[in-house]
């Protein structure tokens, strides 16, 4: 592909699903209805920790309009002694998360569900379910969960030979940190704390499930993976996967939080039992209290450097909240936090801590923002101690092609240093600052994933193209696929339709997440397009009666490869399509593979803040994010990913946090008190796209979506330090906390 003559790759085309979205016609899962549909509602635990002694559903079942009541006995059990792994989840936890078995483990934990003719009746029926609890002591925060006399959530979980709430650990080692620290001229060691924050997708969880009389289920749901929905529902209900069709509705945000199921298995069983389609919609309060936020954390970071700025040793110890069941993203914290740097001696260790709060779910580079927060803040202190520019310090230690990362792999060609250079030379970095303003920088890394993907590319009878891919589109990936397809086939972008298939109409495709949708789907679409181009050449060969090796495909036409091949006028795609039946039949191809070659992404951010010194209020005045994206297939949507991640980072750093009250209940379950940034809180979010193409991808694509959330926490913390002259070691930097730091208490 010729860079200079790219017609569609790199162009800001209008997305194929756009008209439906701006007219309100796009069907999100709670917009979907079916004839005969009834409503489901979930009964949730009022206690943070309790044994379920008995559940009596008789009164609920007797209420007029109620069609079915289910409890955990209607969900498949996965015994605690046998791990059953599905992707990044373990079905032992999933079955208990969707419906409590013998214990409720967080306020809001589902323990029964009702289907009734109206939502109001279903809700009323839930109130009539009688549950006898034996209330147990509970622990919400990490400190409370790991102290010696902490209430234990799961009897079978042991650490150091005793029952514990530490459910797992993860470690990375490189070199010898003791030796390393011994060489250091300056060592900084600090403790950091963050609170749980929610992905904050505007569309709550919902689904509509219809199980027919023959037992075949059709699921419409808001999810980041219809194949995951099918598999999880199959595991949890016992229905074979081939009898489940999971259709991905348009999705109103996910950011990782919709990579598991909460409602689909319940709605499926209710539909089975009632013989009616069942719709369940979670409200905002239940979404906040019962669907996974990401972990709160406490960590200790220790970094040592010599006077010339070389980092000689680094250590990160992380405790991450898992919520009620094991599975916090310690992998992201321990694996990504030091990745931008070439450090000879390094050690990261993560602890997975369960406690009585909702089970965490993935959130945009899970664990990595937490990991980077402490490291990037300590690097700022090291730079200050060495009287060095913080970007120069990072440059001296920057990972490059050939560096062995702490988490194992050797980096191929990538553009981290380019992001640092771009930051150093950016006008933002030199712009003057006013009173009570400060500027901070930070870098970040995320693994990015490859994974399975399937695509189909079919030529229509009128010579246009329909592409079907397997991943829900949460950021505009359809637009990018249309660009690539148009480029490969040499036709106008408007002639390409891109659709997302469901589990029955497209081959297995892994989750939308891991910054992989475009990476993976572009690969399989490229392969499919290649096969189709070969088919088109074959058809031309047949029509002209020449050898297919003598034909080339260019600008949407088949032409003879040279004068020797014969003098034939080029055949357009439309002309060949018109003759498809006569030349052999339908023209189209599919391709499925477990894609490999996904390489990590790097970014550097610059942030200016202004602080109201009497009230402690921090406002972001200017923000620039710089990221190596490999190749920006659709620059506007790439920018959109950067800007969205920065906005989430600003919220995480300044105003978002889960607040629990003295009863162990989540106190801020709505958007009034769970404070996400509003339009007037933010400035324009500038972006710089760096393109160091991924050598392992046909278009050079690197995953883009997750890296943007990794640097902001530290970039903003470092900026606040410059504004007020004192450092904060915990998030969010809310006004009362900042005022306390200013006043030196």
């Amino acid at each position, binding site marked *: 592909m010729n860079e200079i003559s790219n017609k569609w790759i790199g162009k800001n085309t209008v997305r194929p699903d756009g008209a439906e979205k701006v007219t309100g016609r796009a069907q999100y899962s709670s917009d979907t209805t079916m004839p005969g549909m009834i409503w489901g509602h979930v009964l949730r635990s009022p206690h943070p920790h309790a044994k379920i002694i008995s559940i009596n559903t008789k009164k609920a079942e007797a209420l007029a309009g109620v069609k079915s009541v289910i409890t955990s006995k209607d969900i498949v059990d996965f015994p605690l002694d046998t791990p059953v792994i599905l992707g990044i989840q373990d079905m032992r936890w999933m079955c208990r998360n969707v419906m409590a078995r013998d214990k409720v483990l967080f306020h809001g934990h589902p323990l029964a569900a009702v289907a009734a003719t109206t939502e109001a009746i279903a809700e009323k029926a839930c109130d009539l379910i009688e549950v006898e609890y034996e209330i147990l002591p509970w622990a919400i925060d990490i400190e409370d969960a790991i102290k010696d006399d902490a209430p234990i959530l799961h009897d079978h979980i042991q650490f150091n030979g005793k029952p514990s709430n530490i459910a797992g650990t993860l470690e990375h080692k490189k070199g010898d940190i003791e030796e390393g620290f011994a060489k250091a001229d300056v060592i900084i060691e600090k403790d950091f704390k963050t609170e749980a924050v929610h992905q904050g997708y*505007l569309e709550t969880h919902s689904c509509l499930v219809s199980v027919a009389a023959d037992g075949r289920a059709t699921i419409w749901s808001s999810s980041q993976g219809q194949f995951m929905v099918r598999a999880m529902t199959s595991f949890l209900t016992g229905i074979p996967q081939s009898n489940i069709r999971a259709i991905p509705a348009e999705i109103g945000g996910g950011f990782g939080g919709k990579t598991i199921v909460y409602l689909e298995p319940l709605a499926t069983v209710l539909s089975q039992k009632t013989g009616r389609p069942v719709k369940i919609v979670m409200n905002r309060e239940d979404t906040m209290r019962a669907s996974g936020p990401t972990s709160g954390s406490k960590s200790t970071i220790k970094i040592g450097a010599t006077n010339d700025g070389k980092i000689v040793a680094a250590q990160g110890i992380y405790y991450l909240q898992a919520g009620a069941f094991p599975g916090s993203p310690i992998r992201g914290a321990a694996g990504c936090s030091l990745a931008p740097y070439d450090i000879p001696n390094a050690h990261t260790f993560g602890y997975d801590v369960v406690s009585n709060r909702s089970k965490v779910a993935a959130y945009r580079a899970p664990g990595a923002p937490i990991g980077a927060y402490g490291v990037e803040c300590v690097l700022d202190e090291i730079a200050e101690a060495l009287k060095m520019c913080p970007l120069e310090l990072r440059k001296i230690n920057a990972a490059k092609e050939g560096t062995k990362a702490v988490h194992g792999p050797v980096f191929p060609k990538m553009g981290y240093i380019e992001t640092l250079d771009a930051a150093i030379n950016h006008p933002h970095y030199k712009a003057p600052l006013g009173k009570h303003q400060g500027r901070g920088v930070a870098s970040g890394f995320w693994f990015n994933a490859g994974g399975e993907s399937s695509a189909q590319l079919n030529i229509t009878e009128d010579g246009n193209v329909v592409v079907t891919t397997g991943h829900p589109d949460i950021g505009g990936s359809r637009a990018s696929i249309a660009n690539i397809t148009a480029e490969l086939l040499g036709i106008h972008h408007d002639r390409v339709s891109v659709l997302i298939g469901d589990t029955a109409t497209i081959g297995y495709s892994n989750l939308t997440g891991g910054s992989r949708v475009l990476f993976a789907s572009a690969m399989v679409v490229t392969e499919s397009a290649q096969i189709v181009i070969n088919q088109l050449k074959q058809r031309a060969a047949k029509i002209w009666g020449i050898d297919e090796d003598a034909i080339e495909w260019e600008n949407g036409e088949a032409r003879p490869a040279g004068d020797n091949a014969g003098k034939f006028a080029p055949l357009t795609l439309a002309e060949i399509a018109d003759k498809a039946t006569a030349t052999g039949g339908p023209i189209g191809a599919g391709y499925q593979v477990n894609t490999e070659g996904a390489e990590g992404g790097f970014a550097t951010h610059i942030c200016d803040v202004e602080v109201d010194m009497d009230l402690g209020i921090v406002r972001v005045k200017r923000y620039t994010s710089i990221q190596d994206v490999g190749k920006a297939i659709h620059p506007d*949507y790439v*920018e959109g990913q950067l800007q969205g991640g920065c906005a989430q980072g600003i919220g995480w750093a300044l105003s978002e946090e889960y607040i629990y009250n003295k009863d162990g209940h989540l106190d801020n379950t709505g958007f009034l008190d769970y404070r996400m940034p509003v339009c007037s809180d933010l400035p324009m979010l500038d972006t710089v796209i760096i393109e160091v193409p991924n050598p392992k991808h046909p278009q050079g694509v690197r995953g883009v979506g997750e890296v943007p959330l990794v640097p902001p926490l530290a970039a903003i913390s470092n900026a606040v330090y410059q504004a007020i002259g004192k450092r904060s070691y915990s998030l969010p930097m809310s006004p009362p906390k900042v005022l306390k730091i200013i006043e030196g208490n």
Partner: protein
Amino acid sequence: MSKIQVSTNINNESVEYLCEPHDTMLNVLRNQLDLTGSKESCGSGDCGSCSIILDGELVCSCLMLAAEAEGSKLETIEGMSEGGKLHALQQKFLEKAALQCGICTPGFLMASKALLDHNPTPTETEVRFWLAGNLCRCTGYDKIVKAVLEVADDMKESA
């Protein structure tokens, strides 16, 4: 439990419906009238996804009883384009990638339309404060604000 009969006007069409006294306008729009373009993201007036224009004022339909629509004129997202032709704001949102997942988009379009109806030449700050009642989690608002300012500019030029 007796239902209330309501006669109202939605997107320049006469509409009649029966509703419970406690039904919200959003509920009736979505579940009775098949106007699912307005979305419910919070149910408490904090996110703006359910924004409609009621007798010329921008309001949250989740904070309005369906019974209150009697005799009023409502505009919802479904009425923003006319005869299949997109409103300038809708077109600009598409061209400027001012949406990602799109769930907040109907609310933002209603709010932006109301803004330009009241104030055709807003500054960036005025746009940001007017749209503060509409949450977006995907875009960071940058492209949305730029799209609205550009439409205002386009309208000024063609005036």
